[in-house]
């Protein structure tokens, strides 16, 4: 891995599998009487949130605390300073306080990239969702969940068919998932009304369909994206009801999925809109599991970025189990 986690596109297959494997080990910590590791003792992780997202923030907070890092939560929302000034000035403040990692959620696409490349701070930057760009840890926890459900918790997702349904245009979750899942060997199909597919999607490593029913029977996993309320009055689709009918997942549609296939949702769900209560509450829906897995994934990311003198090296993860053993052996 690089020093930062900005985009799922920056992860090689080996990087991604290393994160997933590490998260598997982290997940085991949750089953112990003492759910804490001393690994990041003395390191400071700042959660810098320019946008409300309690779910993501507490997930990162729990992850950092389980690794014994000190956590500072910085909610920059509602600051009276202009947005540009506040990002830079806030960054300089965090740098002065000795942040080893900054977990940033920002309404503007590219803000984490800017933070990582501007020279404002020296620590690692973890993108916790930027505008309509990316949300790489969400994609990692989604892949982790799918790997557990579909691939025995090992290796990659070669040959799995993943369908992502909904507002792709505005979805950072979709962008990160397309990159990551294709890197892991999955075949990704995006399904949305044409108004919610970005112009330029043809360069993405995935298929695009406007017809959910034509792909659902061949899907190993169907990921439903949240449809934001504010899209409803912007002519992306005529009515909520029509959207739900054409692109929502209800019990009948779910029944046409293969028996082993799962339904995923990054949350929070709009029940009755993109997903019915029947589907949301069925054992095939992994939404709650995804939340649990989020902590393990974020522990893995923080550990791999901060656990050593430098982040785990890209492309040669198989070195490390052996390197770890040299001490007593020689």
């Amino acid at each position, binding site marked *: 891995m690089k020093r930062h986690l900005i985009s799922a596109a920056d992860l090689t297959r080996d990087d991604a599998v290393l994160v997933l494997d590490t998260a598997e080990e982290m997940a085991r910590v949750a089953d112990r009487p003492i759910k804490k590791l001393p690994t990041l003792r003395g390191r400071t992780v700042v959660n810098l949130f320019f946008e409300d997202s309690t779910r993501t923030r507490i997930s990162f907070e729990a992850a950092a605390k389980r690794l014994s890092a000190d956590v500072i939560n910085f909610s920059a929302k509602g600051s009276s300073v202009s947005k540009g000034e506040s990002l830079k000035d806030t960054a300089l403040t965090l740098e002065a306080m000795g942040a080893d990692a900054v977990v940033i959620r920002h309404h503007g696409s590219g803000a984490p990239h800017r933070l990582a490349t501007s020279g404002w701070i020296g620590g690692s930057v973890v993108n916790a969702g930027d505008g309509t760009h990316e949300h790489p840890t969400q994609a990692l926890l989604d892949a982790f969940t799918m790997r557990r459900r579909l691939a025995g918790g090992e290796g990659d997702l070669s040959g799995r068919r993943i369908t992502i349904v909904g507002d792709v245009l505005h979805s950072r979750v979709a962008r990160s998932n397309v990159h990551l899942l294709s890197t892991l060997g999955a075949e990704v199909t995006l399904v949305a009304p044409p108004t919610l597919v970005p112009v330029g999607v043809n360069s993405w490593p995935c298929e695009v369909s406007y017809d959910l029913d034509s792909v659902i029977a061949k899907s190993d996993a169907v990921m439903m994206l949240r449809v934001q309320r504010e899209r409803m009055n912007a002519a992306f689709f005529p009515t909520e009801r029509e959207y739900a009918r054409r692109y929502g997942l209800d019990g009948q549609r779910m029944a046409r999925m293969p028996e082993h296939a799962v339904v995923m949702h990054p949350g929070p769900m709009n029940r009755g809109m993109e997903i019915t209560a029947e589907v949301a509450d069925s054992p095939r829906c992994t939404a709650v599991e995804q939340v649990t897995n989020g902590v393990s994934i974020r522990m893995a990311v923080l550990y791999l970025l901060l656990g050593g003198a430098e982040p785990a090296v890209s492309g040669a993860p198989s070195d490390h189990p052996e390197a770890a053993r040299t001490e*007593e052996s020689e």
Partner: protein
Amino acid sequence: MDTGMPAAGGGRSTATGRPVLEAPDITRVLTRIAHEIVERAKGADDVVLLGIPTRGVFLARRLAAKLADITGRPVPHGSLDITMYRDDLRLGPARALARTEIPADGVDGRLVVLVDDVLFSGRTIRAALDALGDIGRPRAVQLAVLVDRGHRELPIRADYVGKNLPTSLRETVKVQLTEEDGRDGVLLGSAGAAGERQHSGAEASAEHAEP
């Protein structure tokens, strides 16, 4: 221990060095250790064997089989990864984790025998004790190693030793096990000699340069 490292460009078990234990020796000392455990643990009914990855796990598995032969009862065994408890994490890149597998009945109130291939500075065992403390509260903890090469940096000693092997800091000790390396053996070599893998020695000496 450096077999199977693609970065070093080698295949498996091509290390050179003077053999100090051959396959039959390893089998023999493991049998002896198993008997010692039964004797010291008065029948070994509450023994749990936890191997430290990578080779300690295979040794623990072999010891468990021998104990089962001797006592006629299955002996719980598993693995204990110590990576996240190491005191030298910040001296190198972040390390991939190995598996921690605790037997179903846990370790509380039991006699845990930690198993590792080589005892050197003692830092791995210090980390293992910390890791174990977060998992449960054993009745007692003991340590079994295949080779003790000396040079302790912490007040730690082994309860069961396959072979005491006085070494100099310039020498390397390589344990090979069939499960990982395709053959059994312990080799004594000198760091920097032809055919040795530089980075492993460098890593070890870096640790010991900054205790």
